[in-house]
């Protein structure tokens, strides 16, 4: 790691007295929590009153800028389009597609710049106006670098075309160049200029061009040596410029706004058919000559220099240091990776540079309350660590409305993240239970296929039924459908409700067999058996015989089962004795009813057989 170039900036936190008390902090994904502790800095360990707030400190202000959000959203669309470009495409068609993608990115940057410029002009107070203006210049620098990378790495312009592209590049970014070229073009040898620069669509080969240029260059030199224009110092310096004389060019320094402008002009006149690999030599010397030892190169200069040297990794590294968020390097690296320009450097945590940068960018997006949806797609295209990062992030998205929860669940289900689905549904179900929305809680557990939670909620329903004597949420329980099979308790709940419905519709025979099956199939929890048997009482007391003899024997067996298991109580208080009394009375009533029913059933069945 590099050493820091300067002292880190100090941020003062309002309300916290760092001289008196010690502070503590903890890192989050994109933020930091800071608060004051009660530990005093002085030797005495008395507890002094401290600031009661916990502060959240954010580093990445860019994510919150309104205008930059448009950049993030639009570039997200371009990113997705790039990933979906057919891998089969090779050669020229692929290159032209990649160049188009690069131009799209650049136009988005420009649009953003334009808008921010408008806002900077219209800003009411000078401080924010300055802030916007500085943001505009950062965006401008980004576009400058991207454009150069497009020319050198993506377009891969060959000698000859290279200089044309560089001319366009400079022209786009420097306004004053127009006056200079107008100057030169209006000079003595326009015809030579015109025919020479007829490059688009012409069929001359590189050697022919080179010969032509050599010829013209020699002619100019001859003019100079013959002192043809000695009388006119202006024209003579023009001639020197056209010969690519560096000193003459440097004399016009005010017209050349920066060193790369100087570089391109110099190349235009001294070596227009420069090959890409020779560029870096000219670049380095142009930078040195232009700065003239007065000032040192700025970060932007170093980045451009690295680009001219075709050192992509250096470009990306310097950009990462200089820029405040990962947007630029992430997208540029991804594009260059699609051009197959990055060897997979194995960084020490196992993935390559493209993936590292995309992961950082996407994590930054997830720290924002709204832009997390964009982050999802970026994680999708990180083959090694994307999925696991996405799983961790998805679980931590705050869910305050059902619609947001549904969107999050849709994202998880699409990617078969069953663990996350289950955990999110469980959180929502717990929230619903706490708010006494049992129906909602049940729906969530059904969606998560969480049998344990469904059992819990069903128990709550049954308990409510026992307390109130009636069911709540009938519209839910009556319409459970196949979801009933999720857990035994849930099935019992549904079937028990069905029993009540049948009883209400006077379908006694069906109700009776259902009741019996609930007990014999052991779906019913033991605690409920007494209730079920008590429910059977009215059926036993009916005029007609509903339970057959066989069924009655079953019921008796269940009753004995139940009573035999009850522990014998020793000393007990009044309430328990009263309860026991009630229990005993109930059991006796049941036994009586069962016996009577058995008698009638046997008689009835005996009679039928006889007739």
């Amino acid at each position, binding site marked *: 790691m590099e050493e820091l170039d300067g002292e880190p900036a100090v941020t003062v936190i309002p309300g916290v007295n760092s001289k008196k008390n010690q502070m503590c902090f903890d890192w989050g994904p994109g933020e930091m929590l800071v608060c004051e502790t009660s530990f005093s800095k002085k030797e005495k360990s008395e507890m002094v009153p401290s600031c009661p707030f916990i502060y959240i400190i954010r580093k990445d202000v860019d994510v919150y800028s*309104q*205008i930059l*959000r*448009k950049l993030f*959203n*639009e570039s*997200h*669309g371009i990113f*997705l*389009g790039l990933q979906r470009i057919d891998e089969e495409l090779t050669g020229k068609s692929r290159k032209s597609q990649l160049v188009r993608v690069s131009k799209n990115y650049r136009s988005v940057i420009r649009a953003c710049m334009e808008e921010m410029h408008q806002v900077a002009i219209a800003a009411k107070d000078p401080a924010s106006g300055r802030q916007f203006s500085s943001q505009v210049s950062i965006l401008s620098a980004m576009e400058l670098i991207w454009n150069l990378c497009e020319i050198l790495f993506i377009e891969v312009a060959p000698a000859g075309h290279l200089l044309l592209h560089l001319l366009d590049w400079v022209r786009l970014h420097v306004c004053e160049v127009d006056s200079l070229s107008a100057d030169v073009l209006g000079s003595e040898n326009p015809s030579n200029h015109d025919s020479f620069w007829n490059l688009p669509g012409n069929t001359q080969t590189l050697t022919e061009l080179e010969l032509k240029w050599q010829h013209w260059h020699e002619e100019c030199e001859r003019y100079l040596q013959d002192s043809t224009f000695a009388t006119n110092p202006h024209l003579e310096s023009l001639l020197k410029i056209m010969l690519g004389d560096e000193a003459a060019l440097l004399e016009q320094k005010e017209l050349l706004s920066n060193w790369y402008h100087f570089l391109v002009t110099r190349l235009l006149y001294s070596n227009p058919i420069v090959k890409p690999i020779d560029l870096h030599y000219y670049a380095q010397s142009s930078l040195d000559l232009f700065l003239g030892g007065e000032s040192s190169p700025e970060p932007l200069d170093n980045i451009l220099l690295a680009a001219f040297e075709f050192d992509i990794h250096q470009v990306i590294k310097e950009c990462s240091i200089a820029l405040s968020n990962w947007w630029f390097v992430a997208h540029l690296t991804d594009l260059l990776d699609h051009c197959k320009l990055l060897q997979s450097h194995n960084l020490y945590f196992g993935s390559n540079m493209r993936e590292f940068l995309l992961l950082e960018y996407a994590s930054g997006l997830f720290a924002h*309350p*709204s832009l997390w*949806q*964009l982050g999802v797609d970026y994680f999708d295209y990180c083959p090694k660590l994307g999925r696991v990062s996405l799983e961790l992030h998805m679980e931590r998205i705050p869910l*305050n*409305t*059902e*619609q*947001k929860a*549904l*969107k999050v669940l*849709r994202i998880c289900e699409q990617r078969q993240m069953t663990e996350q689905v289950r955990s999110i549904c469980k959180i929502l179900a717990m929230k619903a239970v706490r*708010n*006494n*929305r*049992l*129906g*909602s809680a049940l*729906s969530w557990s*059904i969606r998560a296929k969480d049998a344990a939670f469904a059992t819990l909620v069903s128990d709550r329903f049954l308990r409510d039924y026992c307390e109130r004597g009636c069911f*709540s*949420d*009938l*519209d*839910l329980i009556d*319409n*459970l*459908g*196949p*979801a009933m099979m999720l857990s035994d308790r849930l099935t019992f709940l549904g079937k028990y409700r069905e029993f009540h419905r049948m009883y209400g519709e006077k379908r006694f025979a069906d109700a009776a067999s259902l009741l019996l099956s609930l007990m014999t199939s052991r779906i019913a929890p033991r605690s409920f058996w007494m209730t079920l048997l008590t429910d059977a009482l009215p059926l036993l007391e009916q005029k007609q015989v509903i339970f057959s003899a066989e069924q009655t024997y079953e019921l008796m067996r269940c009753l004995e089962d139940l009573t035999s298991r009850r522990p014998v109580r020793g000393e007990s208080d009044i309430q328990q004795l009263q309860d026991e009394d009630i229990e005993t009375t109930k059991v006796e009533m049941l036994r009586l009813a069962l016996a009577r029913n058995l008698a009638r059933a046997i008689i009835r069945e005996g009679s039928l057989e006889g007739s």
Partner: protein
Amino acid sequence: MEEIYAKFVSQKIRKTRWRPLPPGSLQTAETFATGSWDNEENYVSPWSIGDFGNLDSDGGFEGDHQLLCDIRHHGDVMDLPSFDQERIVTASSTGCVTVFLHRPNNQTLSVNQQWTTAHYHAGPGTPSYSSAPCAGVVCNNPEIVTVGEHGRINLFKADHKEATRTIDNADSNTFHAVTFLQTPEILTVNSTGQLKTLDFRQQGNELSHILSLTSDRVPLHCVDRHPNQQHVVATGGQDGILSIWDVRQGTMPVSLLKAREAEMWEVHFHPSNPDHLFTCSEDGSLWHWDASTDVPEKLSLFQQGGRSSTFLSQSISNQANVHQSVISSWLTTDPAKDRIEITGLLPSRSLSVNSLDVLDPCLVCGTDAEAIYVARYLFFIEIL
């Protein structure tokens, strides 16, 4: 042909609605309102599309939509119907229902009335008070009906402080949307795929007439009533199935049309040409469904390129006993025989389209990619 204008607006759009035009007016759609969600600060904003009279130098219109003004909104904007020419009602994820007044002459939005505790889990006085999101609002001047995620229905009257009527626990699950059938009767859809109706004239608090899809309990997200036939509604659900229902009869939908496997967030009948229907989905698609049967050269679904749809449907109930005179083409659609044209309206797909609204001859929609699209001159207008 339609022209579609896109604009990135730095906020995820949850709802967009056209401002209604005065009845009988000859104007075309001019202003729409949007509500955002999932931001730390959400906004309700009216926008204006270019004046149709203004042609720029190449004869095209002035360009895309412009923000008129905005106002901060506490919580996500869950629903945004228009109350009248000037007032918009919003439902918030904090359980608050607000009426905003938009004055076009000085372009300001202000809060006209607010019911802050319209929806909550535990009461405002209790220590465990927590608000519940309000899922949907529907207006019929002067009444406002709101439904909450926790199963409560409120009936408000504009300019009255207290709710006229409140029904608690009207649904054991969460309401997702509400619409008026005939004026005192509303229809709601919920997260277990049930449609329930409630007539406010009746005293009881029970919702009647539960209709539902199969027992699959697929949540329904949106509902819209046919503009001319008040018993016909269309719903869209989580599995992307568009269902047409006749609420007078049966407990099953009349037809099911499936487009894609993603939640259908909104469904709208075209207000003056109800044979056309529009839907938008979580997968970023915006579809135009054309069931009109009177176009002579009806193109077959399979001939047109660029119309991607896996289209299977089932017609469920027998329509023979319905009065033939008020037949709707949606009810009689037997998709195996008749052809429903489906057209995708957005140029490329990215994030979810959350909301759409149609007002002749324009369509507006808002997405999670923080973009608003406005389509002018929906194409079939030229045929008619």
